[in-house]
């Protein structure tokens, strides 16, 4: 177990920066999820940490050892990291036990000791007695567990997960998620978990690093990402946040300030030290929207009503912002119909900080 430090890491391929000036400090025993849309550089980040790619600039440290910088790169086989690959990468020509025991064999460990460790690893992932099977004869979930056991048996200082649940069906995902969480609790290993699935990242991680076009957009706890996104990308990416243009009317006071949004005034949460300014944006969640019961709020047109069982997803265009689309859920009984006029009300929101260094 060790901490992992990425210090201003950049990786360029020809004329394209896959990872741009990323700094992350993962504490010993922390579970960090790296989240982002496809092509955001998260897989390159993992390959840099594992040593399959060399950094163009910056430095990567595992524990106190520098493993990558512009002066060179420690080979992946010398880094003592474990990886759970997206497609498991189990060797088809070996049995389950041979797969798990491979790193011990490579390290020339005593055979009896190795066998016991393999047995322990199999027990840890609930696969006792399947050691003689071939990977081809296992179910998807079982293969995932073998991959987990294989990476654990070498007692790596750091475990990297590369979208490990992407190939599993929804049902299996939930149970594997529980298993990963239990495994992290039990082993206390430092984990870097790559995923494009927000729910997965939220459920598992201590902190989430959101990546966008090679840059680190925000590094924060799941709660903070949801409630206090640092920029527009994170705000709209996490849980389909709604972005609305606003003018800040008052300076911050006790974590709140007054803004004008859609020609109405609203008190929103904000960072300390915010001052009045024009051209700001607020982020609100669909839960912050409701049908106005009185004269407060703003008028607009119901564009679509999509009934989803128990509730309907409403798409709404405010009269004050014909280019905007707000969406929210109206539980049964659904009263809104498409094409109708309606009046909505915003309950709250979050003032997105002025563009500056991400925190």
């Amino acid at each position: 177990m060790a901490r992992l430090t990425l210090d201003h890491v950049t990786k360029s391929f020809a004329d394209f920066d896959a990872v741009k000036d990323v700094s992350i400090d993962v504490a010993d025993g922390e579970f960090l999820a790296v989240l982002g849309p496809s092509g955001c550089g998260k897989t390159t980040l993992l390959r840099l940490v594992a040593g399959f790619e060399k950094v163009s600039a910056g430095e990567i440290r595992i524990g106190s050892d520098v493993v990558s910088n512009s002066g060179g790169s420690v080979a992946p086989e010398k880094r003592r990291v474990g990886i759970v690959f997206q497609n498991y990468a189990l060797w088809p020509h070996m049995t389950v036990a041979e797969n798990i025991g491979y790193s011990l064999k490579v390290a020339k460990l005593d055979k009896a000791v190795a066998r016991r460790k393999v047995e322990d690893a199999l027990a840890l992932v609930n696969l006792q007695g399947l050691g003689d099977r071939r990977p081809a004869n296992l179910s998807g979930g079982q293969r995932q567990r073998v991959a987990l056991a294989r990476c654990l048996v070498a007692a790596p200082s750091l475990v990297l997960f590369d979208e490990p649940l992407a190939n599993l069906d929804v049902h299996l995902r939930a149970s594997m998620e529980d298993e990963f969480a239990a495994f992290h609790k039990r082993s206390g290993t430092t984990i870097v978990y790559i995923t494009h699935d927000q729910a997965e990242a939220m459920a598992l991680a201590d902190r989430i690093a959101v990546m966008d076009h090679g840059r680190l957009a925000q590094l924060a706890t799941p709660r903070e990402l949801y409630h206090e996104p640092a920029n527009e990308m994170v705000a709209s990416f996490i849980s389909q946040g709604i972005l609305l243009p606003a003018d800040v009317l008052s300076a911050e006071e006790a974590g709140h300030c007054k803004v004008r949004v859609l020609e109405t005034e609203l008190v929103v949460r904000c960072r300390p030290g915010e001052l009045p300014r024009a051209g700001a944006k607020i982020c609100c969640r669909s839960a912050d929207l409701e049908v106005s019961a009185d004269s407060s709020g703003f008028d607009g047109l119901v564009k679509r009503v999509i009934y989803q069982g128990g509730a309907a997803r409403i798409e709404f265009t405010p009269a004050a912002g014909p280019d905007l689309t707000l969406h929210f859920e109206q539980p049964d009984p659904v009263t809104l119909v498409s094409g109708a006029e309606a009046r909505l009300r915003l309950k709250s929101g979050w003032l997105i900080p002025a563009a500056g260094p991400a925190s």
Partner: protein
Amino acid sequence: MPTRIRESRGQEMALTAAVAVVIVLLSLLPMLRLVKEIVAPGGTLSAIAIETGLRSPATWVATWHTLVVGIGGTLLAVLSGTLVAVLVSLTDIRGRSALVLCYVMPLMIAPQVTALAWLQLFGPASPFLKLFGAAPPLGTKNPLYSTSGIILLLGVQYGPLVFLLVRAGLRKLPRELVEAARAGGANWFTVLITIVLPLMTPSIMAASALAFVSCVGNFGIPAFLGIPANYLVLPTLIYQKLAGGGPAVLGETAFLSVLIGVIAMAGILAQEVMSRRRDYRISSTSLSAEPYELGRWRPVIQASLWLLILLVLVLPLFGLVLTSLVPGYGIALTAKTATLDNYRFVLFEHDAANRAFFNSFWLSIAAAFFAVIVAVPVGYLIAWGKQRWVRLLNLSVELPYALPGVVLAIASLLIFLRPIPFTGIQLYNTVWIILYAYLARFLVLALRPTISGYHQIDRALEEAAQVAGAGLFTRLRTIVFPLVAPAAIAGGLLIFMTALSELTVSALLWSSGSETIGVVMFSFEQGGDSNYAAAMSVITVAVTFVLMLVTNLLAPHLPSGVLPWRD
């Protein structure tokens, strides 16, 4: 200044260096040596070799003949191969796998065996024609001893080569393109002419270039059919010069072999230029088109295809077997005259034939074994390496096989005519020089399937071993080799089959004691002992068939396209 990190890349450097040494020795050295002989014979720069070569009328006659049979054979191969490929791939014909297997078979049979089989079928001594009393009187000239005979057999030999490439192209044809044209009102034949064949231009061009190179470099067919008629092409001219003049004429033959190389390269360049004239790229990938329903034409077309198989495969082999059972030249085959004496003679009595079987077997095994061992690391660098020069690497391995065998044989002679420097080891006039040439020439046959094997393997399998702490050599041994082994070994078996009855290279490199099957077969035929030659041919063809069956067992573990005869 960042801290210097101790990288442990020793094994990678060692592997790269070893591969580089092998490639230099097997590919670059022979080519460079040959070029040196042309531009600087005896060590000083001069144009003497070129001038002498150009002044000889025999050069021009042989070049003309080479072009005639090369272009004629290519045309025939492209026409027949493309036609069969279209019929087999795009229509609802039955028994497709069997057809493919039989049609591709001539490719697995050595050209001189094909030549011998056809000669036996149509000659005045033909036991087959004698069965019907239709043989021409003894002393009549065999009709195949002619330009058209050579062109016909080259077309038969390399039609399957065109077939394979065009069929591979047809399989990638997305069905939307065909369906869009049919929805636009075109009938099947119009679609074929206006959509399918134009889109297949790159495949057909590539196939033509390959067929041309093969026809131009072919030795077996013009040797068996042309030498008796004194119709010499460049490879047979080189053979005759060397057989008559020995090492003294090596410089002259070097010029001729470079001439063949230039002609072959011109064919490849022409293909490149033609293919670039229009955009033939197919962007989408999808299922292949529904087969065209031949309807009432199906039985007719099926019958004609099988008739073709009968003509190009069954009858010649049948004729070959009949000849091998006849006790002597011109004797009619009956239940009484049939004998296995020819087999007994070549297998047990004739010394050179005995040695030839022994030599060819171990040469083929050694070449196949070596190629498999080398193909795995070379393929690793080509398929998975990040270095830019690997494309060059691939090209240089392809070269000795792409160029006609004669070129490599002459280059080997030039390299080993004198003892190897510093060691005094003499390879000239030994069997080892043949082994060297086989290794250089056939390596690519194992490399190609190995590379396509690599492309099918998920690289993560190797990376998983790497994070488990395995160094490069450990990974190659425990992970990579077991995974690409089926493809590499299939390539090795292809090499064995090709090398077993190889003639082009060994005809120029053999010496007393180092005969190969091809060489002895050739000398039997030249000496008029067709029966012995036929017996040897039947044995090698039988061995090849058995090996094809054995190789089929590997088929489930192979990338498609590795075994040419598998549909």
